[in-house]
């Protein structure tokens, strides 16, 4: 498998505090899970891949290469061509990611105009298609505003928008943790289907080991900014690493007694 993304010695610093401490990994068109507790640095890694780390963060890496493009040295124009177009990003809470004053359909159509140069009528038709692809087939959804839809619908709209760029790599940062359990399953089913059919690479960032275990091929476990374990998702349950074991044991289960 040729590497779609190669990260070598990625570091993110806030003043004296090193939040990401020399992380290296390579991935192909596969599903890679990044797991860890809050503050482990997993979201920062996702941001750093798009050069979207917050102000005040000093990011360095020996190499970050995406499909032959060196992200660490690419100019702003090159980065604009990557973000949303070749690398998609879906964040935790659709309420903060969607534009509150544009209807769902119009903002998806806007992405098709920007990323594909589609005309207004063509972009609208494409937006309807991508809404159908995320199982928002009801024609009324196009005209609804973000505050009128549920969290699960908003998140699926975000995914529909991401499809406009037809990216090779999707970074999904806690895409379901703001959703209730049933809505989360629907969003995951949509993601699963799209990744499978389009052959995208996926980085799933989550603190939920069960989720990553069920969804991903491979898992990187992060503790305090460093990768402490790498394994196949199927082998996660057999992990001997104490931190991974703690994460596994922490998940509440139906079998727990009060």
């Amino acid at each position: 498998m040729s590497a779609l993304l190669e990260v070598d010695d990625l570091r993110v610093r806030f003043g004296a505090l090193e939040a990401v401490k020399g992380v290296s990994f390579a991935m192909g068109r596969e599903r890679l899970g990044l797991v860890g507790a809050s503050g482990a640095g997993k979201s920062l890694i996702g941001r750093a891949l798009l050069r979207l780390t917050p102000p005040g963060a000093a990011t360095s890496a020996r190499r970050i290469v995406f499909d032959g493009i060196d992200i660490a040295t690419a100019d702003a124009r090159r980065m604009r061509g990557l973000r949303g177009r070749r690398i998609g990003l879906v964040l935790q809470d659709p309420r903060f990611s969607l534009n509150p004053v544009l209807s769902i359909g119009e903002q998806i159509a806007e992405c098709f105009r920007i990323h594909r140069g589609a005309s207004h009528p063509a972009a609208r038709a494409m937006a309807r298609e991508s809404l159908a692809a995320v199982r928002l087939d009801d024609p009324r959804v196009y005209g609804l505003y973000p505050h009128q839809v549920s969290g699960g619908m908003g998140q699926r709209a975000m995914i529909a928008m991401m499809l406009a760029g037809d990216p090779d790599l999707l970074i999904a940062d806690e895409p379901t943790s703001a959703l209730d359990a049933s809505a989360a399953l629907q969003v995951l089913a949509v993601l699963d289907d799209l990744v499978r059919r389009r052959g995208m690479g996926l980085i799933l960032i989550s603190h939920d080991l069960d989720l990553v275990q069920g969804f991903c091929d491979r898992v990187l476990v992060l503790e305090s900014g460093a990768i402490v374990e790498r394994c196949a998702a199927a082998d996660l349950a057999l992990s001997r690493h104490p931190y991974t074991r703690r994460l596994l044991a922490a998940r509440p289960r139906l079998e727990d007694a009060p």
Partner: protein
Amino acid sequence: MIEARDLIVRLGGRPVVDGVSFELAAGAGLGIVGESGSGKSSLLRALAGLETCAAGTLLLDGAPLDGMTPRQRGRLMQMVFQDPYGSLHPRQTVERALAEPIAIHRLGDPAARITAALGEVGLEPRQRYRYPHQLSGGQRQRVAIARALILAPRLLLLDEPTSALDVLAQAEILDLLARLRRERGLSWVLVSHDFAVVARLVERVAVMAAGKFVEMTDMAALRAGRAEHPVTRALLAASRGFKRAG
């Protein structure tokens, strides 16, 4: 502890709680599980007196809720919300947040009470000088729990108390709540969308959809996979986690 009969709560004319009746014995716990928008949080807010019931009767400890003064209510029950960032004042220290209920209820000896309350939820005495943004999510939720318990209420209302936390912090808060409940013999109502979280804290569960209780069941039945209503079945499947197709 709670006697609710045919409760109706309207938001903008629409009934979000639509004829809910249940009873909760003193020292017992009830989980209310439903999807987003099912009305579970509105029901909990109505129990706390934060939403006005359009119809129905609500007795707490035998007395009608709307006849109580805010102070009586505060002594009887307290609520813990989902996001402690939203429920703690960003410009007030932990100490000030905890001192406020003590002052309002004229309990006296605030310093000793605050130290005891912090100890009970596993926080260090020196953390009383911290502001909410200087604490982790789990620590903030501990402060919210300490504030709820400082008046020694007999009924605790919990609205998704761990869903804003990561798995490690969630496990700690669930353990803390379970211990506090054992020690204090609290009655409580827990709202969540996740049966696995509810399983840690209560035995009896009401499943809510479209403002109504659609199924009253218990954890033993759910563990055995027995669920009547489609919503219960969907939530039960969801609590078992994502399984990849094919």
